[in-house]
Every structure is written in structure tokens, then in C-alpha cells.
């Protein structure tokens, strides 16, 4: 009897917490599907969280009033290249640090670990000056290049390669393969989980990046989604239903990825955390 009561309390607490966590998301989704005028008038009641009188009018208006597809393509291009190039460059670096013997390796490893503690916000303003002096701004490359080499990614690869059994690599080396060929033919196929985790952690961080493109870009031509919504939100006339619809469309790709690859997300986050 007491067991059952405890279980009910336990579930009750979890459901309460879940409602609090879900409320803003439901609010966004329900509001985006309502006639625009009702978003504000119903915001103070339980109706705020319930979609009824469903219409796609807000979504149509967003696509008509804003260059949404353009922002989305910019985001996909920028993040695709940050993640793709980052996987290549940082895995090579992690492997060189974990497995190869070369003069200066320990010093470089120490430097990477030291750089790990410099948060991007400490770099952003000086880097803005540095690149402005070079006249490099307002294009795609300036939003990609600074983030490709990533000390956290290098560190995650490094620890993973350290824990990989050596036998396969040794066999390849005895067969006469050099370190590069060994890496691409033997190590990479056996390191899929770490590649997935690093890709996810990278995407999670850079998909929402706002400060850097705000500093470095001006027009919608090269700006990504986070600036898209911040700009749309300041454009009169203010239509909250449309702003929420923009938000739903903006988060949909990452949310879909998250729901499909949930395990990878959680594992990636936990591994980046526990190794801190």
C-alpha cells in the first residue's frame, strides 16, 4: 500500500516538473498555430498551451515576410562546414597526440589543454578587432574558420583514441601502412561513436551561435537563423503568432535530430561533461 502511494507521489512530481519544462514549448507551438490576434489575448489563460482553431496562416506569413529559407540555408552551410571540417582536423590532431611519437608532442598537448579553458566570449571582441583590421568580415568564411579547430573536440578524440586497443593499428603498421593510412583505414571505422558525439556536441553549440555573427555580419545575405529571429522580432508590425512560427521552424531541424539520435546527444553531452 505504502509502495503504491510512493509511486503515485513520484510520478506526480515527475509529471509536475515535466509540465513546467514543457509549458514554454507548448506555448510556442500552440501560439504558432493560432490566429495571430488570439496569441496575446489568450496568453494569460490555460488556452495559451492548447492549440485550437489550427491554422497555418502564421507560417505562410513568415515565409512571405522574412527570408526564412535563406537564413536556414546559411545556418546549414555554416554548421555543416564547421562540423565536417572540424571532424577531420580535430580527429587527426587527437590521433597524433594519442598515438604518434613526435618531438614537441607533450608541449602541444599541454597547450591544447590550456587553450581549453579560454571561453569564446573572451576571444570574441579581440578577434573582432583582429579580423576587422584585416578587412575580413561579413561573409560565410568568417563565421566558419574560427570554429573549425576546437580544443574540446581534440580532447574528446584524444581520450577516445587512448582507450582504443592497439592491436589493429599494430597489425596495419606491420603490414607496412603509414600512420595516415592506418588512421583512415583502421582507426576511423572503429571510432564511429566518438565522431558522432563530437559532431553532436559541436552542432549543439554552434547552431545557436548569436554573439559572433552579430559582431561580424550585417545583412541577411550571410546571417544564420539566430540572428534571423532576433531581427524578425524587432520588425514592426509585431505579430507574435508569426514570431512563434519562425521559432518552431528554426528549432525543428535540431529537435528532429535530437529525437532521432537521442542516445548520441545524451552520451555526447555526458562524455564532454564527465571528462571535464
Amino acid at each position, binding site marked *: 500500500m505504502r509502495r503504491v502511494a510512493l509511486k503515485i507521489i513520484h510520478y506526480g512530481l515527475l509529471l509536475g516538473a515535466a509540465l513546467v519544462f514543457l509549458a514554454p514549448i507548448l506555448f510556442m507551438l500552440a501560439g504558432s498555430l493560432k490566429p495571430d490576434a488570439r496569441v496575446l489575448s489568450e496568453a494569460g489563460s490555460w488556452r495559451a498551451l492548447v492549440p485550437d482553431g489550427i491554422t497555418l496562416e502564421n507560417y505562410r506569413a513568415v515565409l512571405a515576410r522574412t527570408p526564412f529559407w535563406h537564413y536556414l540555408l546559411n545556418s546549414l552551410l555554416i554548421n555543416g562546414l564547421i562540423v565536417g571540417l572540424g571532424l577531420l582536423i580535430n580527429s587527426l590532431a587527437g590521433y597524433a597526440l594519442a598515438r604518434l611519437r613526435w618531438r614537441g608532442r607533450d608541449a602541444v598537448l599541454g597547450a591544447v589543454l590550456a587553450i581549453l579553458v579560454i571561453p569564446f566570449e573572451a576571444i570574441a571582441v*579581440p578577434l573582432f578587432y583582429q579580423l576587422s583590421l584585416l578587412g575580413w568580415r561579413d561573409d560565410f568564411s568568417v563565421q566558419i574558420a574560427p570554429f573549425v579547430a576546437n580544443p574540446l573536440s581534440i580532447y574528446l578524440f584524444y581520450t577516445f583514441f587512448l582507450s582504443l586497443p592497439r592491436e589493429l593499428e599494430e597489425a596495419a603498421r606491420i603490414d607496412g601502412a603509414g600512420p595516415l593510412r592506418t588512421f583512415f583505414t583502421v582507426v576511423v571505422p572503429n571510432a564511429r561513436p566518438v565522431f558522432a558525439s563530437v559532431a553532436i556536441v559541436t552542432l549543439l553549440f554552434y547552431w545557436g551561435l548569436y554573439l559572433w555573427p552579430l559582431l561580424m555580419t550585417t545583412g541577411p545575405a550571410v546571417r544564420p537563423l539566430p540572428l534571423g529571429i532576433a531581427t524578425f522580432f524587432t520588425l514592426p508590425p509585431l505579430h507574435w503568432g508569426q514570431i512563434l512560427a519562425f521559432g518552431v521552424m528554426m528549432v525543428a531541424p535540431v529537435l528532429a535530430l535530437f529525437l532521432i539520435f537521442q542516445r548520441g546527444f545524451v552520451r555526447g553531452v555526458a562524455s564532454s561533461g564527465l571528462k*571535464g
Partner: protein
Amino acid sequence: MKRTPGKSARTALTDNATGWLMMLPALAGLTVFVVAPFVLALGMSLTHLRMGSPLGAQFVGFEQYLRLLQDASFQRALINNALFALGVVPVQTLLALGLALALNRPLRGVAVFRTLFFMPVVFPMSLVAVVWILIYAPGPNGLLNGVLGALTLHHWQPRDFLHDPHLALPAIMLTSIWQGAGFQMVILLAGLQEIPRERYEAAAVDGAGPWQRFLHITLPGLRNPLIFVVIVTSILSFRVFDQVRIMTQGGPLDATTTVVYQAVQSAFDRAQAGRGAAMAVVFFVIVLAITLIQRRLLRTEREVR
């Protein structure tokens, strides 16, 4: 890359050229985009450099730092960041710990709950900020005002959260907690699952109650993940920018301004390069101090290389 048969049997080869070759792209990137601006910031903060001014960089020693520490807005920013940490760190850590403990049981539906709690983490902060502006809408029509009204049987006087000097910073804190708690929960949950079951079984045999088990097994077992979560949340509290820029622009009356917000302002709006660089350095010193505390705390447990 063929090697002579005699050499290939030795696996402990030195790969000087290849090692550097594999390291080079990443090293070049980190040098140009992290080390260089960092060194530049240290140098610039000792000058009167202004962007677009023909005067060039005049060396002024630590004057920028002295001025900063006397600057009322910057003092306010430091205080706000500290308040942010004092508010967010305990609340978010306890919330994340509570959720992790609740989910660390063989219950049906645990996976669904874990997904729900983690979901806000994948929301970009710019979007979260915009949605919460609407949640904080003033008057009885705002969602939060409506909820508080319903909970207090309409004794709640509707507030304009984001324009109230006393409520604006707590409002931004609440938004940040909602967005970040799932991240800390996942880390603590991973930590909980690493505590060996035998310890609990042994304690149960010894007749320890649930509270004693929590105090003597769970908490010590979670020591490192808890330290990590507290430190990371403290650092994040000093990195706050997006929410402030979008929700309040640092107002009302600097009530929500932060160190990073000030640095971006001085860089962007007034082209005071020396001053902005000095702010970046101060910000880095704070983060470094928090990081060193973490290293010290964790080193007692295991050697962090």
C-alpha cells in the same frame, strides 16, 4: 610510406614528420583564432587604441583597468554576474540533482521524462529569449502573470518583469535555468549510474535508511560530477550575453548588464578597442580563477592530466 621490412616490425616508431603534419591544421587554426586574439587583447588593453582613429596605439599601462574598475556600469556588470551565479548555481544544481535522482530508478517512462527535461537544451538561446519575452508579457494577459494570478486566486498584481529593475535579472535567471537544467541533469545522471550497486546493497543489509544511503553513498559518489556541474554553471553565469542582449539590452538602468555585454557594447557601439580588450582580459581572469578552483578540487580525488 612503405617501410623497410626490418623496421616495420618495430611498432614504437617515431613519426616526427607525420605527427606534426596531422597536428598542423588544428594547431594553425587555434593559433590564428584563439592564441593570436588572446595575445592581442593583452597588448591592446594597455593602449588607448580606437578603431578607425588615425592616432594609433598609445601605451598607457594599466590605465584602462583602473578606469574600468572605477566605471559604475562595469562595477554593476560584475555585481550582476556574481548575483547571477549566486542565484542560478544553487537552484539549477539542486533542480538537476532532484531530477537526476527521480530518474535514476527502474520506472516505466523514464526515457520519456529524460527527453522532456533535456529538450530545452537543444533550443537556441536566441529563440528561448524571444519566447520568454512573451511569457513575461506585462498585464494579466502575460502567461507568467496569468499563472501566478491563478495560483494566488487573483491576489497577484501583474508585473512588467523585464522592465522592473528588481525583477529583470531574476527573470533572465529563470529563463537560463529552464534552458540549462537538462544539461546538468544528464551529467549527474551519468554520474549516478557509475556508482556501484553493491554499495547500496551492502548498506541496505547494514540497515541504512534511504536518507543515510543518500548521505553516505550517493553524495560522495557524485562528488566529481557535482563539482563539475557547479563550476561549469558558475562559468556560464559569467558568460551570459544572448539573453541580455535580446530580452533587456542590459536595462532597465544597467540592472541586467553583464561583463560580456559591456565588452561587446564598447567594441561595437563606441569603437573603444583598448577598453573592450581590457574587459575581455578581466572576464578571462575571472573564468580562469573558477577553473583553477575546479582543478584544485578535483586533483585531491585523481590526478587530472
